[in-house]
């Protein structure tokens, strides 16, 4: 751990070039409304700030520094040009409530992004406002609810979710007031059709699916599923987190989905920022258009206008104070323009090539696949259940040891269905040599497990910290720094 910024603080120190020099004003505010104490912000110099946060940054893995085959997360290259252009003064300074005549640049981009996303999903309309995948899901499920309500179909209180689904799916359904019913998965990673048939009924509002699923395989019965749910009067929600696998190859609309979100921070390469921000636009077919969240952009003649509550009386409403993560939308738009017609389907093709190559090589190297009879999509799952038995190591140990090899670990907290799972997604922007190096590392680690198991058990060894105690963290909550004020003045 580096010293906390608070531990570097000294009373009276400041980054003075950043302070407006107007200390003498006294506010025209009654004193009972004023603050009397000083908040615990650090008092440090500009150099200290720069050095501290530069230093901290170096303790992170990131795409710009490491291979990051984190399944379900699509950690691909985030083009620097796109980042730079999103920071043009005209974009950064535009107030979200500026008049339309002072906003045509941004609005043109937003409009064209809506059109682009319609084209790559086959859907009929798009709202860009959701701020991440989960909020896109919320918008989608709220629209399903609004749709049923608009038809006075009030009994539908259950949302189907495959057991393999990402946690946001059931959480969203619950947040929208639905009961969640899980549907099981068959041995090939497809939804168990019989279980689905048993689950649907007049209480079914819809089903939330991702395809390819979070098991790294393409749902082969997608049309049958669509028919079953539609026949029962439910709608199909497409969790677009895995769109990278089919971008430009398959249209979600064609698979029978009624509504979906996209993860711009995955498929459209906007940086993940150590946790966010993202972008979760929703796309719908004809029957859900009236319910789309506002604001949206429309074009009349040569000018762009906002569609607001007045234009869309049936809208589920607003999900953010302004226009969602506008800067992320700009970035996604620009990325799409850099790919263009020629590049869009290459995303899915090369993501799939990389995943299948890695799968083939790991299989040859003796690793067990969760779904050995299936193709990888843009990702796939290795299960270490055998190694767990024979070598008494866990997926977690392998994951931590990979960090020592300067590679980020695959996803292992998820999906919960597969024991000792490593969900591996290389993405299309990584080159063959990197994939080969990953296989070499995996082989080497299993070799280590045979001969020096503590190398894995105690891993990582070469990072700023060794393995961290999560249990202690949760038991003895220590969530903020409490100044020992005596320390503060040296």
């Amino acid at each position, binding site marked *: *751990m580096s010293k906390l910024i608070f531990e570097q603080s000294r009373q009276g120190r400041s980054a003075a070039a950043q302070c407006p020099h107007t200390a003498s004003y006294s506010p025209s505010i009654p004193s009972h*409304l004023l603050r009397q104490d000083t908040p615990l912000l650090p008092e440090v110099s500009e150099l200290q700030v720069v050095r501290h946060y530069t230093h901290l940054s170096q303790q992170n893995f990131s795409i710009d520094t490491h291979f990051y085959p984190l399944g379900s997360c699509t950690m691909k290259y985030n083009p620097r040009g796109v980042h730079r252009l999103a920071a043009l003064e005209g974009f950064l300074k535009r107030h979200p409530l500026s008049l339309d005549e002072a906003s045509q640049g941004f609005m043109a981009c937003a409009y064209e992004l809506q059109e682009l996303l319609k084209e790559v999903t086959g859907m009929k309309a798009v709202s860009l406002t959701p701020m991440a995948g989960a909020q896109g899901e919320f918008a989608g499920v709220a629209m399903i609810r609004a749709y049923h309500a608009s038809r006075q179909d009030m009994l539908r209180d259950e949302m189907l979710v495959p057991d393999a689904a990402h946690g946001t799916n059931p959480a969203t359904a619950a947040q929208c007031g639905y009961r969640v019913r899980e549907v099981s998965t068959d041995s090939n990673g497809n939804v168990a059709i019989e279980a689905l048939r048993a689950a649907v009924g007049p209480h079914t509002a819809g089903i939330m699916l991702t395809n390819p699923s979070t098991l790294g395989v393409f749902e082969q019965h997608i049309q049958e599923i669509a028919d079953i749910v539609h026949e029962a009067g439910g709608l199909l929600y497409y969790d677009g987190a895995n769109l990278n696998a089919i971008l430009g190859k398959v249209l979600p609309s064609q698979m029978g989905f009624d509504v979906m979100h996209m993860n711009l921070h995955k498929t459209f390469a906007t940086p993940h920022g150590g946790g966010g*921000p993202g972008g979760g636009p929703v796309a719908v077919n004809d029957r859900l258009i009236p319910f789309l969240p506002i604001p949206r952009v429309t074009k009349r003649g040569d000018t762009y206008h906002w569609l607001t509550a007045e234009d869309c009386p049936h809208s589920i409403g607003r999900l953010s104070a302004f226009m969602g993560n506008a800067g992320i939308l700009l970035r996604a738009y620009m990325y799409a323009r850099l790919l263009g017609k020629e590049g869009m389907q290459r995303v899915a093709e090369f993501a799939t090539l990389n995943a299948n190559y890695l799968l083939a090589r790991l299989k040859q190297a003796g690793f067990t696949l969760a779904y050995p009879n299936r193709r990888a999509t843009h990702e796939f799952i290795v299960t270490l259940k055998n190694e767990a038995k024979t070598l008494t190591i866990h997926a977690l140990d392998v994951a931590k040891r990979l960090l020592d090899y300067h590679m980020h670990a695959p996803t292992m907290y998820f999906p919960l269905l597969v024991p000792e799972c490593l969900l591996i997604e290389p993405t299309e922007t990584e080159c063959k040599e990197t994939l080969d190096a990953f296989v070499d590392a995996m082989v080497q680690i299993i070799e280590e497990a045979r001969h020096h198991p503590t190398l894995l058990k105690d891993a990582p060894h070469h990072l700023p910290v060794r393995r961290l105690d999560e249990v202690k963290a949760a038991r003895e909550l220590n969530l903020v720094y409490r100044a020992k004020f005596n320390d503060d003045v040296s």
Partner: protein
Amino acid sequence: MPFIPHTEQDIKEMLAVIGETSIEALFDEIDDHLKIKKPLSLPPQLTEMELSRFMQERAQKDLAGLCYIGAGAYEHHIPAAVFDIASRGEWMTAYTPYQAEASQGTLQLLFEYQTMMSSLMSLDSSNASLYDGASALAEAILMAVRLSKQNQLSRIFIPRTVHPHYRDVVRAITQQQGIELVEVPYDVKTGQISVTELKTLAKEGMTALVIPQPNFFGILEEVDLLTDWAHAAKAKVIAVVNPMAMALLKPPGQWGTMGADIACGEGQPLGVPLASGGPYYGFLCCKQEWIRQLPGRVVGRTIDLSGKPGFVLTLQAREQHIRRAKATSNICTNQGWLVTASVIYMSLLGPNGLRQAALTSHHHTSLLRESLATIKGVRIPFQAPFFHELVVQFDLPVDVVLTELMRYHIQAGFNLRKTYPELGEALLICVTETKSPDDLQVLAKSLCDVLKKCVAVVSAADHSGSQ
């Protein structure tokens, strides 16, 4: 192939290992008729150079002079160091810090953020961010409802002095769970929550009261009084505040006798650019006792194998990836990168710098208020303490005034016509430290000119009409 590193040779070798002869074969599990047949109708690929020129032209269109619009998004000076550091690849292109050992940078920064934000709010705990201020308020309300589950009732009091868009978002999000929202009117003389009406409305029960500080009109609410009153009524108090103002104003944790229970709001004023409305970040702080109902990620300090301190994500049992349908929220991806910027911003400003920025904004608003008060045709409806925003009323249509002022390269404020029609032709103006006293004189002068000109036009029209 932009962003794809594969050479012909690579492709050949990789397919050979897989045992296929074409990439297309890898899609053979997908029913053929699901596949896209005709080429997508998309614009042709651009090079970075072409894109740059194109986007520069677009951005150019949105440069429209000095901006006095506030209304929930505020222009402050952002030190260059903030985004120079936050844009380092190690911050910007990292994922959520699930692998703690490989993410100590992000985790320590978030721990520092939690400390700064809870101290700024004078509350015990903070999460690591939500989407934005409006959705943070919705989450705060859901949280208050969970905290009050026992008494069945879900009746949330949300004053009309709360940002109208926030009220829209709260409605969209909470209506899914059948929560009742009670709108509380404001006092037309002060622009503050009407306590009389509040008391009347509360007779039928109240789960929580939302208190904005400053409120949407820039006016300061009587937070002590309101907090104590709500607590006396056994309701929770949810503060929705401008975090920069909290360097100057009494923070939620110190309101009344017990302090607000939850504080939330928009983090944007702390180092995030206007940028068309996002990405910003929502913050949410609470008393220690409510921590297990907090939505969003939380970082905790712990030790490693060798006893060295370090940081991890903790209390994950509240979150969707563990608790699924029973999670405190569905949020997953949050707004981490903006928190990064904000922490650097707060460190650079420090307690004094932040107070100075808030105070200067307030002071310049006072200056403007004084000078506008002397202009014929401008009325200032609310007499009450304010922070850095100001409602003014005209005799002429606001939209005309705004359009005219654009010619002076001034974006004069937010038109209240649609959201508060009862105020007539009213404008909400915001002044921050980025506007100098000279700028304010230019604004006042320009407004004078515009009003004169418009009156002349209107009366000429009247005159010609009456002939």
